[in-house]
């Protein structure tokens, strides 16, 4: 059984991660894309697979497989005014729920594309994204996996993986950032 000090540390870490991720979601909902991008590490992975069983982004065809440079391209494209598929922009509202920090075997066997190193935490949550654009409001459901790296009193995002509930089905255009 986990002792009280260890439990305190887990609760504190989960709380810090959750706060960070809620702020991340808020930046996306406010379309503060430059600030959002600055949360990512230089060696980051932003990943939307089609197959929930896939553990390496190189092992299949992905909806998105961005390194940090490509993610910067993605943000620049969305900010250019010429990414017509998101002009006018999608307006989003995200709900994160069930934030858990995984440790030990659970963390190293997760499908984040990488194994968290020292000073890194593997975090999972469920996400519900409401999106409104051009008279249509739709909802995306997903499981999100992050690897967060300690950075001063905050974190950098090393991995953000989104497994959409319907990733295997025909999807609508998803030009905006998830």
């Amino acid at each position: 059984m986990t002792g009280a000090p260890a439990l305190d540390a887990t609760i504190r870490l989960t709380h810090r991660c959750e706060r960070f991720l809620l702020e991340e979601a808020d930046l996306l909902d406010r379309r503060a894309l430059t600030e959002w991008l600055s949360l990512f590490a230089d060696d980051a992975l932003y990943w939307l697979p089609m197959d929930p069983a896939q553990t390496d982004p190189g092992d299949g065809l992905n909806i998105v497989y961005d390194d940090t440079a490509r993610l910067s391209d993605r943000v620049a494209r969305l900010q250019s005014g010429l990414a017509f598929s998101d002009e006018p922009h999608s307006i989003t509202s995200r709900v994160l729920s069930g934030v858990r920090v995984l440790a030990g075997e659970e963390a190293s066997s997760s499908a984040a594309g990488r194994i968290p190193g020292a000073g890194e935490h593997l975090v999972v949550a469920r996400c519900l994204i409401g999106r409104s654009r051009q008279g249509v409001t739709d909802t995306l459901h997903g499981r999100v996996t992050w690897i967060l790296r300690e950075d001063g009193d905050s974190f950098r995002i090393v991995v953000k993986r989104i497994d959409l509930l319907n990733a295997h089905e025909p999807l609508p255009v998803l030009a905006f950032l998830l």
Partner: protein
Amino acid sequence: MSQAVVAEPQRLVRANGVHRDIYRDPDVFAAEMDRIFTRTWVYLAHESEVPENGDYLTLRIGLEPVVLVRGEDGRLRALVNRCRHRAAVVCEQPVGNAKSFRCQYHGWTYRNTGELVGVPYPERHSADVRERLGLISLPRVESYRGLIFASFAEDVPPLAEHLGPGVTGYIDRFMDQCLGLPLVAHRQAHRIAMNANWKLQVENGLDGYHAGFTHRSFFDVMQRRTGSSVRYASSLPTATSRAFRNGHCAIDPETSSRKPLIARVRTLPEATQRLDQLLAEVGEERFEDYLAGLPGAGINIGVFPNLQLIGIHIRRIEPVAVNKTVVSVRPLLVEGAPESLNWLRLRYHELFYGPAGFGQPDDFEMFDRVETGLDAAHDGWLRFERGLGEETPAGDGDADTVVGNVTDETPQRGQYRQWVALMAGQVRP
């Protein structure tokens, strides 16, 4: 009104344009499903998707549910996915391998050749029920360079003749894109749902006019990353568009330089490491040849009505309703090539295509905008008049082929000539 124009499809298509009703009218859509998708050759899949006996995949030909299956005898069949008893589908999985298909409603069982072999409690049926009620098997299934087509109409000409020397010459070029090594379909495809009529994708895949505008943001990103400015098919006089027989077509930038495409490859995730691996595996002498074939043949090919070959992928257009379509975009890998090459091909494909690529979503946005603009009933015509009257014969062994500039609407005019011919029931036997 709509029933009358369906009776006279010529009224909806002129030499220089088409009427909005062809995108909007549910009666036109219903007529298309009957007169186009059940009367001509329709593309199903690549042979490498069903290599072993028993391999199957389910899809639709027009709106008809079909199982494409390689039977125990090794033969490919397109079977209508519907129990002959009370209509339930007999196969629900998108892909798989099976010796037989069982309707789970009343247990009727069919071999993967379509033969009905199991009818529970047969004594209450007539004795010949098994002979009479095998799955309906489409009368014609043929392939060209691994591309499997089928037809509900028995009297279509042989596939090779239907395609003709013009488009098959381009298909050969496409299939030989990487050192002539065989191409195999990747097990996964991007599938995107569009809220627009299927013909908007048919037109767009062979449109050499739009790229510099619709996809400007993509070219800007690539310019920033590679340091060189390359727009697709600036109206170079040598860059062509072609309309072949039967609505098939191609656009061809006719540039031998692969440099801009290869520069894009160098921006992909892990590109440096993977290119080093490729170099180590194939040696310096062959490295450039592999690299040249990595991003595909650089041509766009349309086989009317539902197949396009673009970049490194096979695109299948799946009509769902008059204003709903699914577009399937399946990358091709190079058989026998180093893993690093195929790894980079998938990354290259992901860059532009798929629901969140840097290119394809903007095409889909234009389809939405066309659908909205079609509300303007006062100007009912869409104009395909660019380069009209300027086309020349091709000299490619097919008297039907005409050639225009790459930005001309030559392909679309060819597509709509075939559309009218099929809709009016005037297709040559």
